[in-house]
């Protein structure tokens, strides 16, 4: 039994809570990435600027999640701590971001 297994064995985790937490976090991320897409579309960001905006926005959202939802203690609610909160559901978030970005980019600009 290696050290990691042993640690998990002595300090067990609740898998249901782990799954529920990561679902909640990825929900929050996908919703907020849609909103970020709206903002990027209104601002008329193009190509790299838009994706940079998405990255910055994701960082901002992660900070908000850690502060408001987790009360400043991410390691209590997710295994990887900070990293898990930031990296939750990146691909789905990008898709939602691109959708609303494109939509509002087209809607706002004539």
């Amino acid at each position, binding site marked *: 039994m290696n050290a990691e297994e042993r640690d998990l064995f002595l300090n067990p985790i*609740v898998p249901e809570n*782990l799954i529920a937490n990561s679902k909640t976090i990825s929900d*929050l991320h996908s*919703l*907020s990435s849609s909103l970020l897409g709206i903002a990027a579309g209104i601002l008329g960001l193009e190509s790299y600027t838009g994706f940079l905006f998405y990255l910055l926005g994701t960082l901002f959202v992660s900070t*908000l999640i850690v502060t408001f*939802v987790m009360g400043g203690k991410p390691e209590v*609610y997710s295994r990887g701590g900070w990293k898990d909160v930031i990296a939750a559901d990146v691909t789905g978030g990008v898709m939602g971001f691109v959708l609303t970005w494109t939509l509002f980019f087209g809607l706002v*600009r004539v």
Partner: protein
Amino acid sequence: MARSLPSKLLIAFSSLLLAHACYSAHEHSLLSTTATTPPTTPSSSSSPSTPGTPTTGSSLPLDITLETLISVSLLLVGIISSGWELKPISLRNYAGGVESGRVLVDGQVKRGGLFGGLEERPGFLDVRKQRKEFTEWMKVQG
């Protein structure tokens, strides 16, 4: 997910602000496309003295940009601070919280903690009563 009143108000206000920013950006682009000269002629013909004619139609004015950014950040803050619940993942924290009533299971306090079921001892079963009920049920069934 119980939304508190302040976060509801925040969400409503910032959504209004975002809608207004979207509308203003739309109006701005409409104005700049109709006001600018067609792209075949160089920029010398469009004199800088004419008011309300932006030289570049793509860039937004600063106030709309600021409004968009502020409204989206406020909206994000409102959504994220509206009572999302996470549960501690380590069994130590979770079981302790459930037992002391700090952590709710399915929205209510669970008596006796996570392993309370192990402590329950059912009383004696009234076999005669159950048998009587069964025979009556059999009679009803035919």
